[in-house]
């Protein structure tokens, strides 16, 4: 019996933590790549003189911009921690055949959230 309504099952090979970490690392990396030019723009303005920088800083006080900054700080923490995990996986000896240090994924996430909380603390 042919049944056109049967859809293709999704690719379930991705359902595991290491894959989620890969996605987190990649997306935070892309977000940071978008953010960094703005960051350097701000630094560049600081070199150009006071007025230009003050203008930019006033803009950066905008709550929406602050919120975006907060998100970026978390992403930076995430990217850093997941990157460190990859260095551990690739450079340190493995403790077992399936030990790709998945535990570090949870710790990395926790640390990134902690960084976010500390940032909020500083802002409020």
């Amino acid at each position, binding site marked *: 019996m*042919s*049944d056109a309504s049967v859809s293709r099952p999704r690719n*379930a*090979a991705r359902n*595991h933590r290491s894959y989620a970490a890969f996605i987190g690392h990649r997306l935070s990396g892309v977000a940071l790549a978008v953010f960094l030019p703005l960051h350097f723009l701000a630094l560049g303005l600081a070199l150009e003189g006071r007025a230009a920088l003050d203008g930019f800083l006033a803009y950066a006080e905008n709550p929406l911009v602050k919120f975006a900054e907060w998100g970026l700080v978390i992403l930076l923490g995430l990217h850093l921690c997941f990157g460190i995990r990859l260095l551990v*996986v*690739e450079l340190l000896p*493995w403790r077992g*055949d399936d030990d790709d240090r998945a535990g570090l994924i949870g710790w990395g996430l926790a640390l990134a959230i902690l960084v976010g909380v500390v940032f909020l603390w500083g802002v409020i």
Partner: protein
Amino acid sequence: MKDMTPETDTLEVRIWRGRDEGRFETYEVPARENQTVLDVVSEVQRHHEPALAYRFACRVGVCGSCAMTVNGKPRWTCRTHVQKVVDGGALTIEPLRNMPRIKDLATDMTDFFDKWHRAGGRFEGTRTRHDPIQPVDPESRARKNANAGIECINCAVCYAACDVVAWDDDYVGPAALNRAWTLLNDEKHGDQRGTLDAATAAGGCGSCHTQGSCMKHCPVGISPTRSIAGIKRMSLMDFLNMRGK
């Protein structure tokens, strides 16, 4: 399965028919207490669909020819019990990902095997049959590294699980790199330089993003992720001129 009394219960089996263009056909086969996915495919072929194309040989997990995508995951079908993977009484069986399809459940594995050579997987002997046998210390670290990877059955489950293979035609994939890693740890292999160069060339170990899907799905418990990490580390040491012998 509790809801599976033999005699009466049936499995709903959806099998991909055709090549890239095709459709799922649904078959009903008796659910049995002890049944592998390959048993189910064989039953369909014998009783419902004589023209169904699929591959198998040994039926005992040695030859590596029977892998298919079962309910979304790549698996060796001859050693996958239906009870372990059935989802609501249904099985959806497709060819493996990441290889050109030939017909129904059979894929063309030519690229998969060619890439073993591209990754430096050819063994080069250094002695002839007239020389004495070269002793190898089974306790050495290198030999243990090699042992961890040599039971590969070439089933391409890891290759089908890996998204980098799907995204990058050039990537040689986990099985080929695992093979290269076993050679890099084999004292009897004469062309260490060649294998390291091949395994680290474009499309080699540098393309792996450590997603770990290969290691999660390898049916014989090999960890290509670990092997690839080993090659990365070795190539770094080599670059820094710190590679021990």
